[in-house]
């Protein structure tokens, strides 16, 4: 494996993809290292030679810290894939909503040809918009939602729920929510309130 730091708190790791290993964009794997195990969504597309994971470095977070500090070339084992968090064909427009590294499965979907109408990415600062260049051209609208932008001309300042409440046209959508469970709860309750009849698929990270 090898790491690449995307921001102060986030890094990617790349694993050699075993020949017989297949997955669907949006699925996750269980990674094992030093007797620790955790599920991570794949951020690469199934056509790529490597498997990419996008990991939030948590000081004191046992596995993320060990992986962030691991030597390049360290052998890791994993099993999977798991999960049903995959894009379903639909007549309704697709809205992808991520917080932090919850963007990982959406990157996999976009790299595999998905063209969602909206991608919302809730992060702290613009330094955390590591996949912006890739995601912006692939979607109708890529909307970074920053809690501390310092530049409200360029970025939407506020939470993803603030954006949805103020700007998302009223109709039915397919919402895909990935990341912090508080975000998933808040968006789900907002959808119940303002976008009733929409469909929701979720993957809670932390």
């Amino acid at each position, binding site marked *: 494996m090898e790491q690449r730091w995307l921001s102060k708190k986030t890094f990617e790791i790349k694993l050699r993809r075993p020949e017989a290993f297949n997955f669907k964009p949006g699925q*996750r794997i269980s990674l094992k290292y030093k007797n620790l195990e955790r*599920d991570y969504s794949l951020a690469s597309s199934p056509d790529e030679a490597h498997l990419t994971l996008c990991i939030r470095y948590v000081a004191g977070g046992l596995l993320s810290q060990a992986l962030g500090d691991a030597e390049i070339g360290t052998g890791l084992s994993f099993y999977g894939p798991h*999960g*049903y968090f*995959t894009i*379903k*064909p*639909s007549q309704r427009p697709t809205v992808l909503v991520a917080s932090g590294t919850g963007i990982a499965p959406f990157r996999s979907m976009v790299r595999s040809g998905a063209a969602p109408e909206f991608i919302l990415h809730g992060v702290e600062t613009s330094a955390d918009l590591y996949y912006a260049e890739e995601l912006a051209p692939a979607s109708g609208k890529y909307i970074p939602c920053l809690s501390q932008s310092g530049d409200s001309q360029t970025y939407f300042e506020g939470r993803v729920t603030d954006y949805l409440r103020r700007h998302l046209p009223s109709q039915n959508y*397919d919402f895909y929510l990935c990341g912090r*469970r508080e975000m*998933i*709860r808040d968006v*789900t*309750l907002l*959808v*119940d309130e303002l976008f*009733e009849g*929409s*469909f*929701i*698929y*979720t*993957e*809670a*990270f*932390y």
Partner: protein
Amino acid sequence: MKIYTATGDRGKTSLFSGERVSKASDRIEAYGDLDELNSTIGALIAHLPSDRSDLSDELQRIQADIFMISAWLATTANSPAVDSLEPIEERQIVFLENAIDRLEDLLPDLKNFILPGGHISAAWAHAARSVCRRAERHTVLVLESSGDDEPAEQLKRALIYLNRLSDYLFVLARECNRLHGLSDILWKKS
């Protein structure tokens, strides 16, 4: 993956196929019954004699089938989520029928109604049987408001499965008593 997201705090929940529905809807009642059935079977397994891993294996296989039926109940018509689900197959029903035949061969003929009870494992098997009947009734309710679609086809098969499973749990209750040297408790007019 985290266990709780608190998205159901206001009485709604998400189906596997993505819709938000009331927790009081027929579908949720039906797969809630299956959840209860699985828990009850778990209690039954916990009371089986330790040397009967064959029976606990059989019951765990049934618990896995019940999980699958729950997923079909959580999936509406025309949903692409259907592609992620395993069909309910004839062989799973045949598995139950063979198990019923095997157990019945061990038991004396029954000429009377019996009262649920006896050994604690038999009592749990009866409890599971009656929860299974309730799951079956709620599945009928879901089917009555369904059209001719793939999930409905699977639920029709699930009904056969649940009907057979109730019979299986009935003979298993009797077998649990027999294993512990207890007779059926026959119903007598009071």
